């Protein structure tokens, strides 16, 4: 009997060892992955009632702040500009978690970050509520212009300063009002949240960061960069109207060819496909990786993108990639690509947060700028900028031309899944001060020429506004 009791003891021991192993896995090994899990809203709902730092733009407008109120809950999070910064700043809700910077930078705002919590020596001994104030790189004036320009459309716009990687504006439509989600009326918050989540147009999605759309002509910029970098800049594509093995045709079945500059301004698909065949997939992929197009670049907002050069499980063929067919990118990726070209091939990580500041305005964390290295030679970047300028001057992006400033850019449209149209630009193209990407989508864009006119005029109005407005005085005011 005693021997059989031993069996029971061994059995108990074995199942308890399983328990210890699983406990270790949950609490230690996989703990970080679980803490960052998208469904884990524990961290942010925990601090809903706690003191919380404010968020302000580069030119000093407060866009999120916590105010003291009377009632069961002591504090209320308010967004003075409503939906204007909805996707960028995000929201915090008592029961539905949070989004945007409110979530990704929660540690700083709530004072959980050690640098924020311990701001001077006395903080070691006195338990005070310390919060971090977030200073955005976004300019309020540019953001307002972006919203006004895109009024009535579905899409997104991103403006980046090529020299610093600072995101000057990031707007996505349709949008939502974060004040409704941070309200203390939990019943109406729940209703709103369900309605926003089930909305087919996806107002909660930050299209500037998370919407992938086929880029077509825009990717020929990367193909051209690859060709120049591997020494194929003098390649001349034969006149052709189709690449039969790849089933690639030109618009209207026209015949085209020539050197790279002329391929670029006409978006000659067959020509680019021929170059792609010559370059091979590995070269194209290598340059794409260097430009940061295959990775998630928006660590600021914690978004995840993958498989940009894939269609489903299969990698796209080199001729398709070279012509941009089936290659999908987000507006932020595209603006980042243009910014790198505009910054002489120096890649600088785009960021929306400039600084985290302490209670007295002292800088606790500085996020600017993060140089990711030389992606292409400065000469290559110069050649590409010339091609962009020529494309606006006499190519198929003439709609982007401005009177006083020389602009370089590309217009592209795609109809594969959802009709959409792109405009990207560098201005002024000789010494770029801004890189911009605008994406419009929706069924009303079925006429490509009309759609390109609309997106070009939107892009022009944002460029005009940015270049005429004064530089922000980050240090002096406030």
């Amino acid at each position, binding site marked *: 009997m005693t021997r059989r*009791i031993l069996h029971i003891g061994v059995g*108990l021991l074995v199942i308890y060892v399983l328990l210890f192993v699983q406990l270790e896995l*949950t609490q230690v090994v*996989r*703990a970080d992955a679980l803490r960052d899990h998208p469904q884990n809203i*524990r961290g942010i*709902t925990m601090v809903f009632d706690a003191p919380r730092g404010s968020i302000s733009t580069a030119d000093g407008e407060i866009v999120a702040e916590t105010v003291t109120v009377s009632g069961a809950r002591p504090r209320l999070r308010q967004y003075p500009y409503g939906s204007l910064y909805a996707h960028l700043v995000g929201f915090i809700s008592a029961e539905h978690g949070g989004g945007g910077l409110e979530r990704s930078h929660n540690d700083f705002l709530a004072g959980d970050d050690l640098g924020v919590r311990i701001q001077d020596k006395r903080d070691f001994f006195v338990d005070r509520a310390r919060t971090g104030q977030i200073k955005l790189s976004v300019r309020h004036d540019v953001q307002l212009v972006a919203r006004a320009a895109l009024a009535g459309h579905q899409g997104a716009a991103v403006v980046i300063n090529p020299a610093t990687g600072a995101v000057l504006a990031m707007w996505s439509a349709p949008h939502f009002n974060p004040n409704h989600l941070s309200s203390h009326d939990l019943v109406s918050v729940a209703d709103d949240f369900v309605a926003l989540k089930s909305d087919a147009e996806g107002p909660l999605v930050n299209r500037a960061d998370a919407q992938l759309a086929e880029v077509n002509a825009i990717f020929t910029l990367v193909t051209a960069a690859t060709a120049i970098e591997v020494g194929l800049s003098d390649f001349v594509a034969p006149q052709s109207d189709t690449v039969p093995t790849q089933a690639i045709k030109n618009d209207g079945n026209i015949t085209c060819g020539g050197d790279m500059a002329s391929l670029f301004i006409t978006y000659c698909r067959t020509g680019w496909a021929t170059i792609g065949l010559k370059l091979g997939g590995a070269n194209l992929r290598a340059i794409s990786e260097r430009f940061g197009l295959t990775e998630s670049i928006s660590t600021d907002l914690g978004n995840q993108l993958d498989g940009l050069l894939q269609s489903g499980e299969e990698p796209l063929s080199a001729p398709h990639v070279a012509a941009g067919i089936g290659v999908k990118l987000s507006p932020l990726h595209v603006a980042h690509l243009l910014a790198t070209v505009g910054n002489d091939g120096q890649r600088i990580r785009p960021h929306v947060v400039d600084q985290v500041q302490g209670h007295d305005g002292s800088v606790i964390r500085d996020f600017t700028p993060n140089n990711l290295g030389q992606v292409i030679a400065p000469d290559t970047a110069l050649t590409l900028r010339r091609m962009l300028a020529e494309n606006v001057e006499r190519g198929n992006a003439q709609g982007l031309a401005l009177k006083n400033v020389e602009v370089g850019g590309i217009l592209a449209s795609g109809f594969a899944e959802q009709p959409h149209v792109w405009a990207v630009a560098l201005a002024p193209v000789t010494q770029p001060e801004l890189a911009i990407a605008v994406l419009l989508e929706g069924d009303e864009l079925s006429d490509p020429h009309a759609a390109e006119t609309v997106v070009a005029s939107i892009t022009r109005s944002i460029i005009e506004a940015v270049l005429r407005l004064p530089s922000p005085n980050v240090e002096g005011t406030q």
Partner: protein
Amino acid sequence: MTTDVNQQRIVELTLLLLAAFITCATVAIAAVGDQVEITWRVAPYLAALLILWAVAHVTLRQRAPTANGILFPIAALLQGLGFALMVRIDPSLAARQTTWALIGVVGFFVVVVGIRGLHQLRIVRIPLGIAGVLLVFLPLISDSDPSDLEISLALQLGPLHVVPGELGKLLLIIFFAGWLADHRTQNTAEFWGETLRIEGDRSRFIPLLGGWLITSAVLIFQSDVGSAAVTFAVFISMWWVAVGRRTDLVLSLGAITATAVLAAVSVPELQNRLTAWIDPWSNPELGAAITRSSFALAGGGLTGTGPGAGNAEWVPGVTDHFAFVPVGEELGFFGAAAVISGYLLLAGMGLRIATKARREFDGVLAIGIAVFLGGQAWASVATTLRLLPPSAMSLPFISINGSALLTWNLALALLLKISETVPEASDQTTVLPGIKLEAERQS
């Protein structure tokens, strides 16, 4: 007599003082992280809890001085930790938990003082068994919703929240121990040798059939994998120790596996739970408790947030079936591992007591109680850790779910009763063989 205190009681008192200190410290630290006035309101209940421990200790000194001295302090520590962590989450539970602690100590007292010898239980085993079956399946008659994991299968008798399932299982264990003690001799592996033959007294299949039927009923009608697993583990362990025939073991394991597979493909409620278990992320209704408990445990990390600093109220059913979540979150991996070790120690101690038991009935009963306690704790923790499909298993001594505390106190008192080393019989019988051995060795 009073001056001659047994060593076991001194160990018990020392450990109890330690448990009381840890409990008070945990309540006090939780107060720093939370509102202090709530803690002051809880203080009388805490004092009452400590007085009840003292009463139990004095009872043991007077009536069972040779009983094991480690069991009660471990159970007390678990109960104290549960009190500190759960009451911080919901202060209104303090009164309820103290009431049940009082009833539990009364039950403890009745078992220790009222039952002269365990053979008295054996006499009434048949009424106990009938009551056990009734209690296990009583909640099925009431209109409780089995898919609601936040609420136990429970009855509300006026102000008292009665969870009959656990008490029923304890009564069934007593019945089963009596049954096996009555009928085992003809059927044991010792009697038959280590044979694989099926032959023998066919009536030996009756207890196995009974265990299989009750387990299947729990699995099919309550869709509760954890409860079914514990029930089966208890029956098969008691039977294995008492009878231990391999052929029959293989047969019953086969039968229960077949039942489980059949139930998994044909009971829709069970299927819901299994899908929620396999992919909780896309099953917000049933999966929420699992995902949230994983998140909360991960938030605790290696060292925990500290008592009172956790946020486990976010997890559904946190003071009941998911009571392990605040333990893991606030005490961290180290604290949680210590608590799990506490249960392992309780179960292991129960098995040791079984090896020393003087009669078959006592030994088999101790096995049943040890596996019941260890198994229930395991299933409850395993559910929060996603090792088991969602089950409504409360954590012994820690969970606040009404009458379960009484059941565990009764079980503990029975184990202590079995562990008594100075029985009705004279203790010369245990001493003499030792002396004899010593003499043989010297010669």
